[in-house]
């Protein structure tokens, strides 16, 4: 019973997160590119998305930091690493380059897939291939627990 509730909760949080992306405009790649285009006709909306998310998130993660167990049971899996490493920076730079090419990051791509865009499907497949290539050839530096 608890396990099933857990799955329903996972699904519901996925829907909620998707709604957040849709309402904030982040599920639209052209809006993301409008934010990233500082030298063009700049759309600052994404700053407000981050502001809203972090304002609420700060409270949630503060409560979580006082706990050792999740409300649905099980330990809290929160990464504890604090070291700034080359893979962290290089990986994020590569991620940002891809984000700047099409305006898609993983969450919004899944939402766009749900809208029925074939290009979103191709993006998601390519993204999975990219992840797998990294896992196969460049994963010796890290543990799965560092992934966020």
């Amino acid at each position: 019973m608890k396990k099933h509730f857990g799955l329903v909760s996972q699904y519901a949080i996925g829907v909620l997160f998707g709604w957040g992306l849709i309402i904030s405009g982040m599920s639209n790649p052209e809006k993301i590119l409008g934010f990233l285009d500082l030298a063009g006709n700049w759309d600052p909306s994404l700053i407000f998305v981050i502001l809203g998310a972090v304002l609420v998130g700060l409270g949630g993660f503060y409560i979580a930091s006082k706990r050792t167990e999740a409300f649905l049971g099980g330990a809290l899996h929160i990464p504890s690493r604090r070291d700034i490493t080359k893979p962290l920076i290089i990986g994020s730079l590569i991620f940002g380059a891809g984000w700047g090419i099409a305006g898609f990051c993983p969450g919004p791509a899944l939402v766009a897939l749900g809208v029925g865009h074939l290009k979103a499907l191709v993006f998601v497949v390519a993204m999975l291939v990219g992840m797998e290539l990294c896992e196969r050839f460049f994963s010796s530096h890290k543990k799965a627990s560092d992934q966020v």
Partner: protein
Amino acid sequence: MQIDWLSFTPIPSLLGGMILGVAAALYVLLHGRILGISGIISGLLHPKLTDTAWRLALVLGLVSAPFMAALFFGIFPVVEIESDWIAIVIAGLLVGFGAQYGSGCTSGHGICGLSRLSPRSLVATLSFMGAGFLTVFVLRHLIGL
């Protein structure tokens, strides 16, 4: 710099952002995990018996979010994809590889990481934002695509 006032949506973006924050907070409090979409997806590549179902449930939630938004609120998401097929493939490869190599993406580092004041996530977020700004500048203003 010139502000695009016609596209600027401070209120919906703030509200949508707060919903993202609520989802991330609920996720860590109920499930004890960081709501990082790239990490949740990549865990499906080498599935383990115990953690495939919940990952799929979350992904299914994201994919069905537009349908549920239409059903409950009559909202139809705007998704404009101007990139051509080659750009989409290259972008997907880079986003997937980079998120895996850099241990996270816009949700894991950007939303959750900043919310828990993680120095690693701050560096990651500044890195991918900087790379995003630079990429769009090069593509739109130097090459003129």
